């Protein structure tokens, strides 16, 4: 875990994250994000989190982003929107202010770096292995683990309801289609 590898990999992650923000085309943005996620996964590997590394690739790059691409293809949205479209100067201002504040925080963190932990803890051999994660997951964190199943259930039921065609309900809805005119 040296500076060189850290800088290279994190540089890739940041550059591709920038690609997401600045790309004019949503699909290009998604691809940039996939690359950024893969770089972050590599960083996980540097942090001896091999299990999380694989899960990151399988879940984020392999499932979530594919879903995004799928929907983009389904809707076939071509990139008509300009990057950093100047339509909302107020929001741009807020974004810049937020960015400045958070960056300030980051710089401050570095400046105080000596006071935070400067060196990784000595860790046992199996740290971050599936066994280690499993032990932590199914003892101390069993309750949250069970709750995630409820979250997934809610999301599943919700997605099914939303995706169902409106005409399937027993009575056709008589509400005006476009809502109330203003």
């Amino acid at each position: 875990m040296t500076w060189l590898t850290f800088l290279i990999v994190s540089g890739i992650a940041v550059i591709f994250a920038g690609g997401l923000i600045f790309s004019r085309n949503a699909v290009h943005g998604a691809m940039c994000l996939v690359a950024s996620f893969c770089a972050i996964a590599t960083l996980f590997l540097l942090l001896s989190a091999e299990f999380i590394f694989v899960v990151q690739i399988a879940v984020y790059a392999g499932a979530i982003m594919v879903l995004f691409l799928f929907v983009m293809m389904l809707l076939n949205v071509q990139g008509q929107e300009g990057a950093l479209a100047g339509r909302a100067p107020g929001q741009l201002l807020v974004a810049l202010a937020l960015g400045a504040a958070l960056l300030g925080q980051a710089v401050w963190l570095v400046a105080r770096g000596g006071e935070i932990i400067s060196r990784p803890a000595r860790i046992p051999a199996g740290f971050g292995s599936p066994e280690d994660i499993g032990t932590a997951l199914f003892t101390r964190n069993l309750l949250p683990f069970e709750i995630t199943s409820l979250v997934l259930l809610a999301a599943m039921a919700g997605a099914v309801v939303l995706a169902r065609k409106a005409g399937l309900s027993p009575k056709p809805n008589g509400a005006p289609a476009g809502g109330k005119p203003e």
Partner: protein
Amino acid sequence: MTAPSLQIITWNLWVSAPVCALAASAMVTLIAGAFWPAFARWLTPCLALGGIALTAAFTILAGMLGLPPAGMQVMDSFTVVFDLIILIAAFITVLVSNHYVTRENLERGEYYALMMLSASGAMLMAASDNYVMMFLGLELLSIPLYVLAGFSRGRSESQESALKYLLLGAFASAFFVFGAALVFSATGSTNIVVAGDATERALVGTTPIYVIGLAMILTALAFKVALVPFHMWTPDVYQGAPTSVTAFMAVVAKAAGFGALARVAAAGPEGSWTVLLWGLSAATMIWGNLLAISQNNIKRLLAYSSIAHAGYLLMGILAGGRAGISAVLFYLLAYAAMTFGAFAAVIILAGRGDGAEDIEDYRGIARRSPLLGWTMAIFMFSLAGLPPFAGFFGKLYLFSAAVEAGYPGLTVLAVLTSVMGVFYYLRVTVVMWMQEPEAESGPAAQTSAPLLSRLVLSALAVAVLALGIFSSPVLRWTNSGSAGLERSAEAAIQMTLPEPTNAPAALSGGSR
């Protein structure tokens, strides 16, 4: 191959029994709605009501056992009071919804199941003493709500509001995650009390990181309870969502957010933290009341009113202590009753398709339907904080707690903004009572509500009155709740949590 040994679960299952009961009944409702659609009309709401009642029983039972903190969840008297508030709110929502769901022709099984799942998330949020658990509770509360907001697929406003709510809610929860990660890296723990205690005793030299993390968590919760400047989504979402969902959102999501805030705020450091809360509270009261004045749509008006009320509630959180938290609990109860009442009236008045939501549409309603007129007047007076209704006593307790805790300036502000609030609440009443009704068109022509809705409306009005007149026994009950919060905080520090492989406090101080 060795057979894996099953480890004994390390906490008492009673701690999570209420949430489990509610989630299980949600699943039963979901399945019943899917497999017996013919009976869904009466079966699913009955199942939902039964499930909520069962959960309430479990909550009371678990509360009587006096369980120690479980490392993730606490079952103290604070949780009991909170859970019961949430369950009462969910119960009323189901009652209020029945009419609406039938009229709008929404899928019943999913509707009630998602509502119950959302309520169980709310209960988790109020009961969790760990940021991770709180995050999961927040998501379990929010994800069904996003769906419910977009539930009337016939109306595009509903879907728009769902998307807005989802995008901003997810944005806020990303703040929560990052804040929790900062707290974790500063203290080595995600337990609210333990992390706060570690910082207080200066076990780690990273208090500012902890404070930044806490501020980000506060941001996320502020989004959920709609504090200014994180309130932008509220009016649009409240207006667009199905009205019964809006009522649920306005009460349960807000209650859950304040339950979480009460636990987090107790762990907050002095100084910058109180300034932050003070500013948020003041801004919320002023802005919410100011914007409410210019609203013509009743749902938007109630949205801004709920923002304003969040400001008052935050004052109680800021005051803290037994009196402050107790006042928050009382006010939440009062707020639930009057807000539900107002929304129930709106549902009855709106007629099919949410056609009538402008306040002007309500002209002369009271002449045609005295029940609606009277109850709406009661709710509006109570929301405005006029005696002898619940809202008045709620504000009284909140203000006195704030004064006692040493925030007289904020209290004066709150009183002034309350006076501002009287204007727009009374306007609704005036329109309903004093103005001439329109001709045969409009909602005034179709105010024939089913019996159940009338009963609920009257019951809520009675509750608002009763909470006002007999406020002291209720206050005693909420007092026990706030006492529980203090006790479990002490217990959590004393409890030996399972030690991680490497004690964080020992090595995070500096380089080795």
